[in-house]
């Protein structure tokens, strides 16, 4: 008897924990509220099934615990019951799958007006690149990476000259404007993840991956690496600052373009040579 009571307490405890938990998701700051809603839906359906199955089990423990003088029922199958359960489960599963797929469809189709951000990862840090006035990012190659070309932009690519370099682990984003994150890595797998935005994707060396979101809350957020990348994984943090359009424009105008950076290095070189001559 006491076994059934303890199991019952476990189930009640689980439900109470869920209701009163102080540990729950962070306030969402992007357009992916649909993910939260699907989680909530799955919670109600799945949680309902969990509670129902366990309560039925507990009922059986109370009602049918062993008595010497009683016999169990002999009934190998019940085709009708099995059919009903199969179809009910199939329907339930389909009802959960549908919203999941609908949101995934949104997730993999990037809106046309999204601004592209090149997120470059390495062991262990981040840096960012934005398209310049032409609205296009220049192509890159790992082999081109050098002090005067921190993103490995192909020097011959005309789109690359005006690219805006953010050699910092913090990137600023414009509020309410969709962002397409283009992920790159120069060494191992990484994953650029801001819990408040809900979205994530691995950065894979040798290829460019992407995802998109639309930040909708001004503020500062922490970036975490969400794919194990070696011993510094836990310390691989970055930041995002979501700003209103006006503030964002100011910030953007203060950033250096690839052309400016190249010129700076050339001057440095020339100065260095002069220094050497003296």
């Amino acid at each position: 008897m006491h076994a059934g009571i303890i199991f019952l307490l476990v189930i009640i405890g689980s439900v109470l924990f869920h209701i009163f938990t102080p540990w729950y998701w962070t306030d969402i700051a992007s357009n992916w509220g649909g993910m939260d809603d699907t989680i909530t839906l799955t919670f109600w359906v799945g949680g309902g099934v969990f509670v129902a199955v366990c309560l039925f089990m507990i009922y059986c423990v109370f009602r049918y615990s062993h008595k010497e003088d009683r016999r169990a029922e002999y009934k190998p199958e019940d085709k009708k019951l099995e059919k009903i359960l199969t179809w009910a489960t199939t329907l339930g599963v389909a009802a959960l799958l549908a919203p999941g797929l609908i949101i995934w469809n949104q997730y993999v189709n990037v809106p046309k007006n999204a601004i592209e951000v090149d997120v470059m990862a390495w062991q262990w840090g981040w840096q960012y690149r934005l398209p310049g006035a032409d609205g296009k990012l220049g192509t890159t190659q790992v082999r081109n990476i050098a002090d005067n070309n921190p993103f490995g932009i192909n020097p011959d690519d005309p789109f690359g000259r005006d690219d805006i370099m953010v050699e910092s682990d913090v990137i600023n984003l414009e509020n309410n404007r969709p962002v397409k994150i283009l992920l790159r890595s120069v060494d191992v797998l990484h994953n650029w993840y801001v819990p408040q935005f809900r979205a994530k994707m691995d950065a894979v060396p040798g290829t460019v991956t992407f995802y998109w979101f639309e930040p909708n809350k001004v503020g500062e957020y922490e970036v975490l690496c969400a794919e194990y990348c070696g011993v510094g994984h836990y310390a691989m943090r970055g930041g995002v600052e979501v700003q209103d359009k006006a503030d964002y424009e100011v910030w953007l105008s203060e950033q250096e373009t690839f052309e400016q950076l190249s010129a700076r290095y050339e001057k440095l070189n020339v100065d260095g040579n002069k220094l050497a001559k003296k």
Partner: protein
Amino acid sequence: MSDEYDNNKSYQAQSSEVMDGSTGSVNPDIDYVRPAEVGEQDLYHGHSFIEKWVFCQDAKVIGVQYFLTAVFTGIVGLILSWLMRLQLGFPELAGFMTAEHYYQFVTMHGMIMVVYFLTALFLGGFGNYLIPLMVGARDMVFPYVNMLSFWMFFVAVAVLMASFFVPGGPTGAGWTLYPPQTILEGTPGSGMGILLMLISLSLFVIGFTMGGLNYMITILQARTRGMTLMRMPLTVWGIFTATVLAMLAFPALLVSAIMMTLDKVLQTSFFMPTILKAGEVLEYGGGSPILFQHLFWFFGHPEVYIVALPAFGIVSDLISVHARKNIFGYRMMVWAIVGIGALSFFVWAHHMYVSGMNPWFGFFFATTTLIIAVPTAMKVYNWILTLWRGNIRINTVMLWCLGFIVTFVNGGITGIFLGNVSVDVPLSDTYFVIAHFHMVMGIAPLMVIMGAVYHWFPLVAGKMLHEGLGKWHFWITFLGAYSIYFPMHYLGFIGVPRRYFEMYDSPYMTSAVGMNEFISIAAFIVGAAQFILVFNIIKTLKTGKKAEQNPWKANSLEWYTSTVPPEHGNFGERLPVVHRWPYDFSVPGAKDDFIPQTTAPSEVIHTEVEKT
């Protein structure tokens, strides 16, 4: 559903005929079993201590050898988890632990528990011991290869353990071993450690293939007369299907281990793209890290079911025996096992939704993944419907089964979160995933293992384990493990990423500190509680109550051997002949509430069975 039920309505307990799916024409002689067509297997009986207990060809001894070796690795895995929990809950007490150590412990814990503990225990341990006994064979069909299988496994474990003692220590690449980091500096153990891991895995696959051939062929070819496929205990069905999966899935692991070894040793670039490290471009180029992930999970997902299916099978038998009731929907249970096994090869990339693979894969793999939930749910329904209107013994074995149902349903439901592609996006690589797979493929199968130990110990050792200690063992383990993993899901909701050596000072993670301390304390207690079983076994072997033959009043053949514990050859002079399925419990009209598989219809006492 009413509680009133009428057993006299006579469900015509010709169960053996109903259940074996044979065509309508029943032989007029109801006791008829076709005569043997081939002679019996010759067995080589060991003569010396070494032949009897070390290089032994008896599947039962090999099973125990597998079991003990796997348990040894499991204890190592347990200690590693304690060290991890110490760092996560009480970092101030874990000053000796660097991030390198932590990642090495994480990796070795995962690999040991999944492959060397659970897989070896279910298939090598229970498979070897139970298959020949349950299908009515004298031994596995290839006893010598079976012996080699264990020793290959033993060497694999030795190589794995050796990696703790090489320069640089064991690999710290995470149990998934994702390249490129696995073989690059920046990951602990990227020298000798990873090489030994890859060699050990290769040896494991070779050893397992030798054992797996035995399990499959014994089940297909060496069943005793009357033991049709649809009269096999579900334990055998689970182990059989899992073995088929393993034979198809492990080659993918072997291939990826070989290719990665080549990438490491010969600088080939199967998985290695152009890489810039410390300002220098390495001598790799053109390889695909995602290819490895596909290969790994093509093995890795069936691997989940390689562990789960034997657990499904075993728990079905335990529930049926101890509820004194036939397993509900036997045929559905069999087809669910086979169906889940087949489907498990079409869902692997649900581990890779955010890996950067082509995002369109997401639609396909989310759909297949959620389809697999249907047969799985059917199994759960059938377990609880077996309890319904049963006559349930609430003993230690049954407690473990009930614990299994709770943890498995819990973990199965969170699987629907993670399988449903866009729901996985925020949760993947967080503690939600850790909580999910520990609940569903850590704790749930462990519950079954424990139930199976208490259930079959009287057969293996001829003595009954102490019930009181068993119940304490169960309650501490169940309540402790549940309070480790249930709240852990909520860390995942917050967004706390997995594989973090420490959390630093992220504002929304501060609330996780208290929970981490709680989880760590629970983990220490649960781990320690496992030694209650060790104590129970030692005490029982010394002073325990002697077990009578078939103490649980079960029907399957392993309880009807010539001696307890069964000797080499299992069944004495004559092999048993099977007349029915193993679930004839509480048959209306029969005197006892169980009818052994070997009982011919005309021998059933006080029953109208034979008249129907």
